């Protein structure tokens, strides 16, 4: 059984900032995924005749 921890405003604030930072990274990643999804699965092959 885990020991009971008292609520700490400083710890909550730190976790909120950590969550925000992680969320921003995830948001940036989602934006990047939009770009990657726009690329074709096969590149255009140019053949000079």
């Amino acid at each position, binding site marked *: 059984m885990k020991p009971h921890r008292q609520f700490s405003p400083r710890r909550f604030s730190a976790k909120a*900032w950590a*969550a925000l930072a992680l969320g*921003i*990274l*995830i*948001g*940036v990643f*989602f*934006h990047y995924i939009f770009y990657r999804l*726009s690329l074709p699965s096969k590149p255009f092959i140019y053949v000079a005749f």
Partner: protein
Amino acid sequence: MPTPDLNPAGLDLPPGAGRATRAWRWLGERTETFRSGLATLPAWPLLAGIVIGFIACSVAGRVVSREKMFRNFSRFIEPIQPQTLFYPTASELVSYVDHKIPRDKILVLVGGASYFRGTGQNNGELWTRELQRLLGSDYAVVNFAIDQAGVTSFAGVAFQILARHYPKMIYVSSGSPVASDAIDGGDVYRYVFWDAYYKGLLPSSSPWGDQARRLAQQQRRAADTQELHLGKWADSLTYSCDLWTFIGYYGFFTVWSNRTVYSPFRAWRYYQDADDPNMVQRQQDTRHNLEYGRIMEERGRGFCSSGLNQDPTGKWVPDQATWDRFAKYSGDMFPDALKPKCLIVLVRGNPYFMQTFTAQDRQNLETVYRLGQDALEHLGFQVLTMGHDYTADDFVDAGHFMPSGGRKLAKEVAVHIQGVFSPSR
């Protein structure tokens, strides 16, 4: 001698556990710690962070779409073409010109395919450099021609947008006397057109605008183009292609390509237009390649009778249905107001690969070029058919120009432009 600690992390390991087992167990415990830590993170700040991060990137994409893209640009080289999964957006093409060329210049935007991109010419020998020299400082030449592009592809989209920014402008593109291009530029480069369309950059006046809208509706229902439209619509909100293409050009590229195996993350701005010292050798190699010669001759002879039929007397006459179709589709390429600003150059092939042509073939070829030029001029386009003074030495292969051929082309184009688009008008 002290006994080495075989379990410095203090993991609960079975007796005789090997290094791999210890490493795997350690990783598992760290992952569990991370997961339990993650589970305690508050949800609302996490969600807010996702939204903030995404919106910030979208705003950044809009900002960089107006920045000047491309450094030391003279033409599109392979590393900054779709062949290496680098897809410049319509916004990036336009912003480059907006930053580079003053509005009081007569903008000469060069488009079309590899003939006009300068395949066969090294950077210092580019025909567009010669064109700029011949036209003088009242004009500003920008070469946006790109491999396998048509009149409406790629640069053709930039033309339609830039025509509203530059009061005096001409678009010069390679073209064919018998084949027109789709309103959206066709397979490879239609992404540029729809990028511009969904961002609201293209002219919308009828009837051309109505045709574009009908095509959009049609392609949104088709399985092979639906995804492109969805993606470009989403991109008009997120500007993700603008942002990450910009980062790929200036910072680091994140898309692996088999042409960049040894430097997969290198920023594209570091790639230079490398000179090929063996162009003359390449010219000789194509001449000595018998299979290549046979294919080019055969293709050329077939081209001679494009749009022509033999009547019962054996005389070659135009096939009216073909020319009606050509006129219809060519008329749809651009809005009517832009056609007089578009100079289509009907390119000819290398005479070295026409040695088996008969006199009738050559006569038919002239007829095809004349009919094509007439049809395009009737629609309002400026048209220039390449002259007959090009020799085999002016070509590196069946169609691409050596520097000497590029100089002849530049001279013909410059004379036409100065005659029609003079600074004093």
